[in-house]
């Protein structure tokens, strides 16, 4: 597949067309039908969550949040392809994959409500926290890949970055180290056409992002990131290559950020209605749904039935997060070092003394 879709040929890998019709039967992934339905439902859940978060944000109940809206086929396919033993190194727009690895929506909420605790994934192993400094996380993925190879484990690292992230030096260093080390890492670029307001053509003059793999002597492929079946198949193939020692691989997943960059962004400043409508046609859920309906695996009725359940579930987890309770001030100090240095302990104690003073001095005033 990586040969047939060598990025130098400038071909994009697709399995279905925009209407959900199979156009490339050769590469249909070998998934059980229930697996595809399950994946679709997870994508739907992720979308419901996203849309609801945006409205929570408008109500002032959560801080800045970067929606995954429109990119669910990528994160959903990665969620379906990643195994319990594999590592996930997210950027910050991968809730679908994080949830598949066992991160709860409540934890995601906690994080965006401003609690560090949201990154302490209780039921997810081998998932790194969200990485805010763009592209820096790819080097962590390469290091994990080295450790896997060194320990001779059968694991793969799924590492994410955005199109904008490909401009950072760390992108280059990570792919270069990975190429030299020949380690099992799948680098997935979510090319959603923009880095905030900056279109991808202002990030680079290369013919695609996938073609950058050539610079590192690694395999690369450009995939229709709104085509769940293609994404899954490419990731599966990438996994296989990694496990057989033929990694790393670079997957450029072409998609579109349907929502705003974050809840504090206004995309009308930098993109047109026409463009948005064009991509509306290619919506990943719409396409997979059409495919499933055509196979009689899904129906509008089922969807209508399930949506309220999802909304409720999202709301339930949101409310759980909301009732997480007071931020414990100790939490600021305890995780800096394996043992708290005296100086830090003294700062903590000073702060306690201040709080006592404040309490006694202003006890009838508000905090």
């Amino acid at each position, binding site marked *: 597949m990586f040969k047939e879709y060598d990025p130098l040929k400038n071909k994009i890998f697709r399995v279905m067309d925009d209407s959900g019709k199979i156009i490339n039967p050769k590469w249909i992934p070998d998934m059980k039908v229930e697996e595809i339905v399950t994946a679709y439902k997870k994508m739907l859940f992720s979308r419901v969550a996203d849309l609801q978060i945006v409205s929570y944000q408008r109500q002032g109940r959560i801080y*800045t949040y970067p929606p995954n809206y429109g990119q669910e086929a990528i994160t959903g396919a990665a969620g379906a392809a990643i195994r319990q033993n594999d590592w996930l190194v997210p950027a910050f727009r991968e809730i679908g994959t994080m949830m598949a690895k066992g991160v709860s929506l409540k934890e995601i909420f906690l994080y965006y409500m*401003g*609690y560090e605790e949201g990154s302490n994934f209780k039921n997810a192993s081998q998932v790194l926290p969200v990485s805010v400094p763009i592209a820096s996380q790819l080097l962590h993925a390469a290091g994990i890949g080295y450790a896997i190879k060194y320990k001779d484990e059968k694991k793969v690292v799924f590492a994410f970055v955005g199109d904008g992230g490909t401009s950072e030096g760390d992108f280059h260093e990570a792919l270069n180290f990975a190429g030299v080390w020949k380690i099992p890492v799948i680098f997935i670029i979510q090319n959603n056409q923009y880095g905030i*307001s900056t279109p991808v053509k202002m990030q680079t003059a290369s013919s695609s992002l996938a073609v950058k793999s050539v610079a590192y002597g690694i395999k690369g492929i450009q995939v229709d990131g709104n085509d769940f079946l293609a994404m899954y198949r490419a990731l599966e193939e990438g996994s296989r290559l990694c496990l057989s020692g033929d990694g790393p691989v670079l997957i450029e997943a072409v998609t579109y950020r349907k929502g705003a960059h974050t809840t504090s962004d206004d995309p009308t400043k930098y993109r047109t209605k026409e463009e948005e409508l064009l991509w509306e046609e290619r919506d990943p859920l719409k396409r997979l749904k059409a495919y499933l309906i055509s196979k009689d695996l899904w129906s509008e009725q089922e969807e209508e039935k399930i949506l309220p359940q999802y909304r409720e579930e999202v709301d339930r987890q949101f409310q759980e997060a909301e009732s997480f309770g007071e931020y414990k001030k100790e*939490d600021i100090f305890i995780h800096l070092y394996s043992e708290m240095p005296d100086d830090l302990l003294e700062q903590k104690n000073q702060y306690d003394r201040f709080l006592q003073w404040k309490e006694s001095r202003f006890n009838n005033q508000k905090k």
Partner: protein
Amino acid sequence: MKIMNMVNAINDALDIKLYDDKNVIVYGEDVGVEGGVFRVTEGLQQKYGVTRVFDSPLAESGIVGTAIGMAVAGLRPVVEMQFCGFIYPAFNQIISHATRMRNRSRGKYETPIVIRMPYGGGINALEHHSESMEAIFGHIPGLKVVVPSTPHDAKGMLISAIESNDTILFMEPKRIYRAIKQEVADGKYTIPLGKANVLSQGSDVTVVAYGAMIREVQRAMVMAKEQGISVELIDLRSIYPIDRETIAKSVKKTGRIITVTEGPRSFGVGSEISQIAIEEAFLSLEAPPSRVSGFDTIVPLPRGEYHYMQDPYKILYEIERIVKY
């Protein structure tokens, strides 16, 4: 005269210098079409075109590194780091080149670059969006580091910065980007860099602060006054070079000095101010020069941030402690 907030004032300064001097070039992540995530550069691309105000690729080392080349070749780049927490990829270019090119070439090549950067906490932002690491930059030889605390200062200081032939880190207290409005003079004026500003005269204790902390100190001063404590407030304005003279004069008068900063405590700006106070006024000191600052910790996410931030109470607490010392 127009009523402006700091965002307007900075935009006005950029506008004036872009108009003034064809060599001024403004770029950075999302500063063009969008006008920056805080809208500081709004409208400038429309006015001056895409070769003078534009979006760069997402790469901070690239932004500062290319600015060095532009400056050496005669331009006057004004670049933006999107947030304080994202300047670090550019650290090498700043410390190894921007601040050394003149010295290295014995004055042959200059690097008139302004690196603008919002900094500081208190806006309920994501991780890496609330930091105040000015002390690190103060330690870099060849760099100037300045921080305005009002719209008026922001405009005058930015114009000075753009006109200076040095590399200047222009730190913008984003917490008060829109919180403070005041009359700002039309047209061009400059405020000299490296000079502190005595905002209030006082006799009991000197408080040194800058950026968003000024407002916090002023609130604390109201409470202190109720206790009969007279505070002299110095807006430092420039982290490097530091205005030793103004500090020395004030602490000789009051005998007491407190520095209020947002960043981590150890190796922070407070220590440097204290050192200056003891060097300049040891025999006048009636209490140990002290500091109100963040902890030696990472800035907590929004729910915990208020523990970390300096507020009027923390400042008052220290003022009372030092005055009673």
